């Protein structure tokens, strides 16, 4: 029982990391209607940028924040230079293009940084004990920052003018256009937000794990499982999905080797697609005419 609770806590930590890129994936999907396979590589790039910034002497919080901004700029650039041009051809061309971008990012990092694993230069801290459960101080930071970022994101989306413009465009692009919303500006802002979420997630992930060119690829299935489980396009769905996938992955290690975590994610993904393709909180798309 204690073990279950302890692993539930680890699940919460995983969920806090998964929720960020999954929210990014679901934001772009909700607005532009294609899945961005490069999302997990943006997390990986964020991790490298954060570590590199710390190496050159930037304080840790600024390094993580800087990774968010730089990856945000990168993501916006990718959309403007590449994805925007094939957006109107349906989901497949941008989807395939994002796979090409995934290759490019992963190997550009490998080219520059090599296969060697890297990490933040951090003091080793003793885990805290709360109610008999253990949690690392850095894990606490990961959960905290992630929650703050997600809450701020939700508030921006719910309260601000640009947030309303984003939601209106996702709901009905024609009506939004008719009411004077600049759809291109909305797309740029969403892509920038996507990059911030992914970049910060990378920086946070680097607090706990070593950084390697393959870390993005290893996140891809869980991130998709989270977004699809919650319903592609649904932000609150991504949160629920992250909790379920995070818990399932951590609890699975009680029974299965840890290397099966991604298989657990795939099983969740496949099951939800077969059972309820619109996800838990997604809106069912009308089928038939």
């Amino acid at each position, binding site marked *: 029982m204690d073990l279950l609770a302890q692993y539930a806590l680890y699940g919460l930590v995983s969920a806090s990391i998964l929720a960020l890129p999954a929210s990014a994936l679901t934001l772009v999907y909700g607005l532009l209607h294609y*899945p961005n396979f490069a999302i997990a590589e943006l997390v990986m790039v964020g991790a490298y940028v954060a570590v590199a910034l710390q190496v050159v002497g930037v304080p840790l919080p600024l390094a993580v924040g800087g990774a968010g901004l730089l990856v945000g700029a990168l993501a916006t650039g990718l959309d403007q230079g590449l994805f925007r041009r094939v957006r109107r051809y349906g989901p497949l061309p941008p989807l395939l293009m994002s*796979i*090409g971008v995934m290759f490019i990012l992963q*190997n550009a990092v490998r*080219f520059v940084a*090599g296969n060697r694993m890297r990490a933040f230069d951090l003091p080793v801290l003793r885990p805290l004990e709360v109610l008999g459960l253990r949690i690392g101080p850095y894990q606490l930071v990961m959960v905290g920052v992630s929650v703050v970022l997600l809450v701020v994101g939700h508030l921006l989306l719910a309260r601000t003018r640009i947030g309303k413009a984003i939601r209106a465009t996702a709901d009905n692009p024609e009506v939004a256009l008719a009411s004077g919303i600049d759809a291109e500006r909305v797309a740029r802002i969403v892509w920038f937000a996507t990059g911030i979420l992914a970049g910060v997630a990378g920086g946070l992930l680097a607090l706990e794990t070593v950084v390697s060119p393959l870390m993005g690829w290893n996140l891809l299935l869980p991130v998709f499982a989270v977004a699809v489980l919650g319903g592609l396009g649904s932000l609150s769905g991504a949160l629920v999905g992250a909790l379920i996938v995070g818990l399932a992955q951590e609890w699975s290690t009680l029974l299965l080797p840890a290397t099966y975590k*991604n*298989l657990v994610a795939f099983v969740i993904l496949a099951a939800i*697609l077969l059972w309820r*393709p619109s996800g838990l909180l997604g809106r069912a798309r009308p089928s038939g005419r």
Partner: protein
Amino acid sequence: MLEYAIAIVTFTAIYAVVALGLNLQWGETGLVNLGQVGFMAIGAYTSALLALAGWPFWFAIPAAAAAAGASSVLLVAVTPRLREDYLAIVTLGFSEAIRLVLLNEAWIGGGARGLVDLPQPLRGVVPDGAYTAAYAALTVAALAVTGWVFSRITRAPIGRLLRAVREDEVVPQAVGKSVLRLKAQAFVLGAAAAGLGGSLYVHYLRYIAPEMFTAQVSVFVLVAVLAAGGGSHARTVLGAVVVAVILEGTRFLKDYLPGIDGVQLAALRLMVIGAALVALCLWRPEAMARREAP
């Protein structure tokens, strides 16, 4: 130098066999499949285990194709329920799931360490000095047979029906053709070709390990098929030649690029493949876009 050329021919023929399979699925029938490497793995492990257990190759290699084809039925069963972007995710995840199982279940094929000293077809039949050339000839023959079979299918009335499924599957359905049967046939045959390719690959290298079957390989054959524009078998083979030359034909460049080590050269190759995929999407997006289902 001759050995190097023979090796490139061998790799090219193997990639081409797998690409022809994907072309039948995607180019002809419009079935998205990002998991071709999963079927290669199933074929490769099938024939490797059979050969190690003493079965002859005339049985082990066809069995590899059959096992890969049969396993693809799992995916065929879900295709009618999934939109194409979801199908892309599921097929990619499927192949990764297969790799994870092979990695963890050491009783199947030795886990991460894999299996070494695999038996080779024609070993002992042809003189050792000519073995690599003979193996290259075997892979080219496999390519010729695959191309022959697939081109007969696409020229026959069934080929027309496969293209009809690609264009708009409601139409063949409305005139009395079972779309599920057609999709299943194309998918199973395409997966069988991947199984054949996977089997030829590992018996050539004489070892097998899960690391050989990462999703990258699916993207290599995808680029070959997209470069060919979909549909033509001859151009698909040409696409595979281009991809194989980028991947295998650039190893000598290391001697000419002094500042670059092996890891960097490998990374550069993969960046070229990624850039090719991006360029193909920019160049001909409309060729990849499909008509919306009703």
